[in-house]
C-alpha cells in the first residue's frame, strides 16, 4: 500500500480504520476492511478496483450516505461519525454534491427544478451569487435550452450533465460521483468527464469518482485502487501504464 504524502490538515476527506461489514457470523461480508485514506482538496480522484471490491461502499461512507461499522471519517473538517441523522443530512445538503450512475433526477421535476433542489430543500431562495453561478454552470454544461424539460425528455448524457450542474450550483466542497459515465457512450462520457475536470480546475472543487473504466480514470489527477475492501494503492497523477499495472496485479 502506498501512503499519501499529504498532511491531515489539508485533506478534503480522510478515513481512519474504516470498516463496513454486512451481516454477521460466518456469512458476514467485509465490504470495507480497515481503510485509511486521505484525499487532497482541489483534486480529481478516481476510485477503481474490481467489481465487489467495495468502491460504492467506500463512496457511500465517505459521503455520509451510509454508516460505517467502525472507524472514523472526517470530511471538510467535520467528523461524520459523530453527526446525528439530521445534521448529517444537512451536511450533505450544504457541503456535498452527488452524481450517480442513473436515476439521478426526480422525474416529476424539470431540469431547472432538479438543479436548484438542494437550495430549495435548505429553504433558501436562489440568491444573486447562486443565480450567477447557475447561469455560468448551465452555460458551461450546455444546458441553457434544456432547463424546462423533464428528465424523461433528456438524453442520458444530458441527464448526467444536469446532475453535475446540481452538484456544482451549491457551495459543495466535494462532489461524489459513482460511475457517472456507466450508462453513456464514449462521446457523452468524454463530455461529462471533461466537465467534472473543469469543475476541479476552474471552480476549485474536489471530485471523487468511482469508475472501472480506464479511459475515465485518465481524466483524474489521483487514482485509489481497491481490492477486497482494502486500498491496494493510491497513485498520484499516474501514467496509463502505471495505472494498468496497478490494476493488473490483483486481477
Amino acid at each position, binding site marked *: 500500500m502506498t501512503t499519501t504524502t499529504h498532511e491531515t490538515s489539508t485533506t478534503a476527506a480522510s478515513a481512519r480504520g474504516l470498516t463496513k461489514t454486512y451481516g454477521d457470523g460466518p456469512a458476514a461480508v467485509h465490504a470495507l476492511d480497515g481503510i485509511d485514506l486521505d484525499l487532497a482538496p482541489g483534486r480529481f480522484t478516481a476510485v477503481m478496483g474490481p467489481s465487489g471490491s467495495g468502491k460504492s*461502499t467506500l463512496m457511500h461512507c465517505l459521503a455520509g450516505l*451510509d454508516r460505517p461499522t467502525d472507524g472514523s471519517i472526517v470530511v471538510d473538517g467535520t467528523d461524520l461519525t459523530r453527526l446525528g441523522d439530521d445534521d448529517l443530512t444537512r451536511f*450533505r445538503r450544504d457541503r456535498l454534491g452527488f452524481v450517480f450512475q442513473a436515476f439521478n433526477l426526480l422525474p416529476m421535476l424539470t431540469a431547472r427544478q432538479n438543479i436548484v*433542489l438542494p437550495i430549495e*430543500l435548505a429553504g433558501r431562495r436562489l440568491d444573486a451569487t447562486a443565480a450567477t453561478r447557475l447561469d455560468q454552470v448551465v452555460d458551461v454544461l450546455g444546458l441553457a435550452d434544456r432547463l424546462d424539460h423533464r428528465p424523461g425528455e433528456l438524453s442520458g448524457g444530458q441527464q448526467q450533465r444536469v446532475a453535475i450542474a*446540481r452538484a456544482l450550483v451549491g457551495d459543495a466542497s466535494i462532489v461524489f460521483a459513482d460511475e457517472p459515465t456507466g450508462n453513456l457512450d464514449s462521446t457523452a462520457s468524454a463530455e461529462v468527464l471533461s466537465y467534472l475536470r473543469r469543475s476541479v480546475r476552474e471552480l476549485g472543487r474536489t471530485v471523487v469518482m468511482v469508475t472501472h473504466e480506464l479511459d475515465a480514470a485518465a481524466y483524474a489527477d489521483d487514482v485509489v485502487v481497491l481490492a477486497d475492501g482494502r486500498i491496494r494503492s493510491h497513485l498520484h497523477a499516474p501514467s496509463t501504464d502505471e495505472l494498468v499495472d496497478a490494476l493488473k496485479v490483483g486481477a
Partner: protein
Amino acid sequence: MRTVLIASLRAHTRRYVAAFVAVTIAVGFVVVTNALASATKAGLSQGVDDAYPASDLVVGERYGISEHDLRATLETARREGDTTSVIANGWLPVRSDDRTLGSEVTVGTVSTDDTMRRQDVTTGRAPRSDREALVDRGAAKADGIAIGDVLTLGSGPQGQEVTVVGLADSVSYLGADVYVPWPTLSRVPGAQADAVSYRVGDGAVGRRTAQLEDVVDDAQVRTRPAYVDDRVTMVNQGVDVISYLLLLFAAIAAFVAVLVIANTFTILFAQRTRDFALLRCVGATGRQVLRSVRVESFALAVVASVIGVVGGAGAGYGLTALVRAFAGPERIGAVSLSPSWLVAAFVGGVVVTWIAAWWPTRAVTRVSPLAALRPAESPGVRSRGGRVRAGLGLAVVAASTAVLVGAVTANSLPVLLVGGMASFVGVLLLGPVIVPALLRAVGRLLRRTGPSLRIASANAVRNPRRSAATTASLLVGVTLTTAVLTGMASARGAIESQMDAQHPVDVALTGETSIGAATLRQVADTRGVTAARAVNGVVATAKGLGSVPVLGPDETARRSTLDPAALHAVPGRVLVPPDVLGDLDGEVPDRLTLDVDGRRTTLPTRVVGSEWGRALVVNPATLRGLGGDPAPLAVWVQAADGTDPDTLGGDLGAVARDADLDTTNALKDRAYVDLQLDVLVYAVLGLLGIAVAIALVGIANTVGLSVLERGREHALLRALGLTRRQLRRVLAAEGLLLAVVAAVIGTVLGTAYGWLGVLTIVRTAVPDAPLVMPWTELGAVVVVAALAGLAACVLPARRAARIAPAQGLTLD
C-alpha cells in the same frame, strides 16, 4: 409457473395488505350484522316467551284484540273461574303531581296475579289493587319517580290516579315505562289491548278453547306455544328488515373495497410489469402469466374472506357480550350465526375481490416481452383510452343531470336514486381529469409552506389514474356523509318549523285563578327562562269539559312564542287544542257554548294541533265579549336553547304547585324528537364510517405502494439533503392532498345530492322546507378527512424514512 406463483405470493404479501384489509372489513361487517341480528332475535324471542307466564291459552289476533272479543273472553273467564291477564299498552299523557312526564308516555299492563305477572319487581312490591302501579327502573331514574308517588294517567275527567308501589326490570318485548292493572288502563281513552293471556282453572284446556272460540268473533284462541311461535316470527321479521337495511351499508363498503382492491392490483401489476415482461422473455405465454396472477388474486380473495368471516364472528360475539354487560342481559340473547349468511358473506367477499382484480389482471396479458427492456411510462389522460373515458364521463354527467332535474320535477325518489348513482359514476369517470387539476390547485395553495408540499403535490399528480382511483374510494364515503348531513340539516329545519307550530309555547303554566305578579316574577327569574308572558283569560264552563280557562293572548304574548300564527284566533272563533280534545273524548261539536259567570256565548270551534296546555284560545276582542273579568290565568314561558327540559320542568313545577297551576312542558317532546334525529344521523354516519375506513386503508395503501416504487427517488432526495422529517412530511402531505381533494369533491357532490333529496322528498311533505348548508359539519368532514388522510400515511412515511440513503440507492 408454480415456483413463480409461490415466490411472488411470498414476495408480495406485504403489498396485498390493503386489499386484504378492505375485503376483511367488508366481509366481517356482514357477519357482524348477522351475529347481532341473531342475538337481538334471541333476546326478543325470549322476551315474547316470558310475556305470557303460567298461561295455557292466548286469545288475540295478529295485531291486537277487538273490544267485543276482549269482553267476551273476560266474561267467560269470570264465569268459569279462570285467571286472565290482559296484555295492553298505550301512549298516554302522564303527570306526577303538577309535573307533566310527557304527553306520550308508554303505559302497559301488569297482572295483579303473581304467577301471571311478566315483570320482575326489583324494588318495592307488585301492584295488588287497580290503583297501584309498577314503574320501569330506567324510566323511574330518568323521570325522578319514586315509590309512593301518585301518577295521573290521561287527562281531564277520565284521568286515572295510581300510586307507584314498585320498580321493575325493563322488558324487551311490549315494554313500557309505567305498568298498571288492565281495569285501570281500560278506563283511559287511547289504550289498546293486544291479547289476553288465559289460564284454565280446571285444566280442561280443550273444552275451554272450544267455548272461547264460540264467543269471540275474529280473535284466534291458541295454545301458548303456538301463539308465542307466531309472535316470534312476527317480531323477527322486523329485525330482518333492519339487517337487510344494514346490508345496504355493507354493499357501500363492498363497493369501496372494490375500488381499493382494483387500485391495489393496478399499482402492483404496474410495478411488476418488468417481472411479467421478463417471464414473457424467457418463454411464458400470455395465458400462463394471466393464470398465475388470477390464482394469486383468488388466493388473496379466499384467505381474506375466511379471515373476514372468522373475525366478523368474533367481533359479533364480542359486541354481544359488551351489550349484555352494559345494557343488561334482557336486551340481547345468544348469537346464532346463520350458515347461509356466512356462506353468502364468504362467497360475496371472494366474488368482490375477483371482480375487482379482473380488469387489472387482464392488463397483464397485454404486457409485451419488450416492456422488460424499456422503462414503462405511466398512462396519462392524453392517451386514447383516457380521452374516451373522459368523454364518456362528460356524457354520463350531462345525461344524469337531466335525469336529476326530472326527478325533482316529478318528485320521484327512484328516479333520483338512479340519476344520483349515474352522475356519481360519471364523476368517477372524469376523475383522472378533475382530480389532478384539483391536486395541482390545492398544492399551489399550500406550496408556500415549503419544498415538502411542492414535491408532494408533484408526486400526487404523477399518475392521474392512480390518484383518481385512490380519491374515488374516499369520495364515496364523503359524498354519502355530506349528503346525509345536508339532507338531514334541511329536513331538521322543516321538522323544526312543524314542531314550532305544534309546540308554540315551551312551557305553559295554566290555572283557573288569577296569577299574581310575584308568581310571574318567580317564573321569569327561573334559570333558563328567556321570556315569561302572562296571558289574560276567563274561566268558563262548557258541556263535556267542566270548567276550562279561555285565554285571549294579545299581540305581545303571541309574539314571544315560536309560532305566533298558531296562536292567532279569528275574532268570534275558539281554538280547541289536543289537551282539551282529549276531554271531549275526541268528538268536537261544531259550536261550543261557553258559560262565564252565567253569561252564555256560542262560538264556532276550530280544532288545532298546537299545544299550550288545557285551555281554549280566542281572540282578545272575543274574550272581552265573553263577560267575566279577564285576569292572568296562564304564563307562557320560552326557554333558552339547550336548557335541560327536566330541570326547567322541575323548577317551574315547584312554582306551579305553590300557585295551583298545571304545567305543560313541550321541551321534553322536542328533546325527544331531536334525540331521534341525532340517533338517526349518527347511526347512518357510523355505518358509513366503515366505507370511510376502507377508503383510508386504500389511501395508506396507495402511498405505501408508491413509497416502495419510489425508493430510489427518496434515497436520492435524502442524499441531496432532505431530512427524515422532511421526507415523512412529503409523504404525509401526499396523503393529505389526496384526502383533501376527495373531501372537497365529495362535499360539493354530497351537498348537491342532499339538496336534491330535500327538493324531491322533503318538499313534497313540507313545501317551504329550507335548503340548509350545515357549514360546521361540512367543515368538520373536510378537516376529519384531511387528518385521516394524514394519519393513514404515518406508517408508510415512517417506513420510507427509516431506510438509509445508501440502501435506497441500490434498490431496484
